[in-house]
Structure formats: C-alpha cells, structure tokens
C-alpha cells in the first residue's frame, strides 16, 4: 500500500511529519491537521506577492507529509515572520511556525544557511549580540559611534566562555 506524488515521485514522510507536528503542539499548541485550505493566510501573506510563498500550501504539504520538497526549496526562507497568517487563521493553524520548524530542520540536516544568518550566529557566539557596535553616519554624514554619545556601556555576556559552552551544546539539542 502506498501513496506517491507522481510529479516528484515523493512519498509521505510520516516520521518527520510527526516530529514537526509534535514540536508545533509543544511550542504553540497548534494542530496543522485542522487546516481546511481557505487560503486566508496566502491572501494576506506579506511574502507572497514578491517571493511566491504560499503558506496554505506549506500546511497542505505538511499534512500530506511531503517534507523534503519544502526542505529543498528556498521558498521557506522567504517568510518575513509578520505573523499575519497565524493571527488570522480561522482554525488556529500557524504557517509561520511551521516555516520556523522547517528552517530549523533544514539547518540541522546540514543544508546551507542563507544570507547573513551565519554571521549573526557567529557574532552571538563571540560577544552575545547579533552585531558589534556600529559606526553610523548622521544626517550631515558625520561618523558617530556609541562611545561619543554619552551612553552607558553595552550590556553583553560577562563570562563569554561559559556562554559559548552552553550555546555550542544547544546546537546539537532538539526541541
């Protein structure tokens, strides 16, 4: 007995589907199976017009268990996390959170992390913040840095060794 998607020869991946559903239940108390495909999410999706993200299709593919298709697509990285889909869903489904789960799984399985995420991660590991203090320019094109502005010292992790140790342990943990 089997179900096969003839366009990709993909088969439902029950284990990873259950893993995602359990995670959503745990973190957001969300049950994607309740989706009835009204597409209210996609109608209002901030990323749809520009980047062709279709949240209702993400939910449908999850329900069908066709996970690899999504993990292999860049489209999961187009979500702007505006949370409109979750806010307005009549069945309390949260496509935005499914997308977070999918991206996490893609990263954990070694797929490339796009854009500046790696740099931000590196920065958090080394000084606790996504970026170090920046030099900016004011309206008259004068360079300005934090220390010129009479602001208190930046708050960041004091014991960086301990901090790094925990974060590196986190990388291999699962929710």
């Amino acid at each position, binding site marked *: 007995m089997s179900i096969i998607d003839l366009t990709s020869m993909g088969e439902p991946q029950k284990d990873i589907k259950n893993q995602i559903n359990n995670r959503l239940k745990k973190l957001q108390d969300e049950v994607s199976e309740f989706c009835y495909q009204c597409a209210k999410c996609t109608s209002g999706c901030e990323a749809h017009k520009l980047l062709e993200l279709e949240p209702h299709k993400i939910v449908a593919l999850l329900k069908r268990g066709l996970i690899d298709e999504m993990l292999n697509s860049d489209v999961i990285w187009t979500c702007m996390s505006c949370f409109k889909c979750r806010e307005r869903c009549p069945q309390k489904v949260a496509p935005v959170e499914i997308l977070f789960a999918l991206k996490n799984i893609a990263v954990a399985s070694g797929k490339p992390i796009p*854009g500046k995420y790696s740099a931000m991660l590196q920065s958090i590991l080394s000084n606790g913040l996504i970026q170090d203090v920046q030099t900016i320019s004011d309206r008259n094109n004068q360079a300005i840095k934090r220390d010129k502005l009479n602001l208190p010292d930046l708050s960041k992790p*004091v014991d960086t060794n301990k901090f790094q140790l925990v974060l590196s342990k986190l990388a291999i943990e699962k929710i």
Partner: protein
Amino acid sequence: MKKYVFYPGCVMPTEQYAYELSIREIMPILDIELIDVKDFSCCGEPMKSVNQLMTIYLSARNISIAEKEGYDIFVPCPMCHLSLSECQNILENNHEINKKINEMLSSENLCYNKPINIVNTVDLIHDIVGLDKIKKLVKNPLNKLKAATHYGCHLIRPSEIGRPVDSENPQKMENIIKAIGAEPHDYSEKLDCCGAMINTNLPESALTKTGQKLVAVQNYGFDVFVDVCPWCHRMFDSKQKKAGETVAAKLDMPVVYLTQLLGLSFGIDRNKLGLNLNLSPVDKIKFGGK
C-alpha cells in the same frame, strides 16, 4: 518613580542610538527609572529560523538575569518583546522544555523561576505613565501634525502570546500622539510589514516592502511616520533612500521614534533626542501648525 530593568537588545544599542538616546531622555521626565544591568545577550529571535531552542534559551537567560534584580523588565524592541513573552509562555506551559532550559541555565549560574512583567515602550507610556501625565508635560504641542503610526509586526501579533496592543486595531500609539497635540490617522496599510526580517537573506525584497509602505504613507499626505521598533526604523529611516530607489519612487518621509516625538513635544533639545541621527528628512516636521 517606578523602576524597570532596562533590556536594550542588540540593534538599538549597537546601531539605533537615536531610540536609546530618546528613551533615556524622556523616561526620567515620565518618572520612570531605568536600571542598567550587565550580562544581557541577544533575545534570540533573529536566530529563530536557525535554531528555535537557542531562541528560547537566550530569552530565558535574559529573563533570569532581570528576575534577579526584582523589577519588571522594559523591552523597547518589539522583536525582543515577543521573544521574551513567547519564551515565558513556553516555559510556563511545557514542563519538559522548562526543565531542559533550566538545566542549561544552571551552567551559567542562572535560573528561570517565574514569569515577570515584560513591558514595551507603547504600553509603558500609555498604560503605566498614562495619557494625563503626558498631556501635562507637553510644552510644544505638535498641532495639526498628521501622523501615521507603525507598531511593528512583533508588537501586534500573534495575539495568542499576549501583545501589549490590539492585534487588528492597535490605538495606543494614536492615543499618545493625540495627547501631544498631533493628529494620528488610520490607513489601510497600517498593519503591514516593513520587510526587515528578510533583510538578512533577501535585502532587495525587504527594501521593496519598506518602499511600498512608505509610498502609500506619502501618498496619503502624512507629515510624519512614527515607529517604535529599531528593526523597522532601520528600514524606514536609515534605508529610506535605498528603499525609494528599489521601488523607483522619490521618498521624502520624515520617520521618527515615538520617544523622539514625545521628547520634541516636551521641549527637549533635538540632538539630545538623537534627531541628528535620523537619515529621513525630519527637519520638515513643523510645530504649532503649518
């Protein structure tokens, strides 16, 4: 004098200095004392796409640090505010994750015990300071200034996590703006996203979102665009020129932080509020009528 632990996050203290300057200027006037604490880190929200457990850990870590001080926490950045709030929700509702996070926290000698109040700029000013007090402090009423507000997605949604303003019809910024004499107006695109979250990997698209919203606001004839989020402000103000180029429009929209606008109405010096750091044409803002 009410005391709050001041949680600055990443973007504000490393780049969006105008927000921090204006906050530090107006809070004492509003009888709010901010307590600076060492050892904070990123809230984790920017890493939610990469590893959500890290997001939860970092937020829990920051809550634990604030908890030790014994005061509620003031979080001016909406993204941090959502991250910390969601973290508390998860830790309160899921024993298993709570246990796991606390095990990790213990290696930094920290512990998450119980939820604390997490306040943002908008509810701090609107609900805790109160509009009556604001009205009394106004020296330069911003009469007839037509203002558009932008709350930032993370401040308004998702309501399930408990946000400081109404998710579909937020009015607290409008009420504050009215209290200082200006005229807020609702507009159809009010709840739309600035695009900042994909600036990390798809900057062109992010700027398109920014540009589209500013074009709409400009076409409605607003005099000023008011926000409270350092991420959004970075898009609407710092990158306004680029956003205009991306959508092929001439953008000329003064963008200010709510705290800057309040400071102006209180008669505080422009530079003390960091107005020299806004890259949008804030000099266009006129006081006491046009």
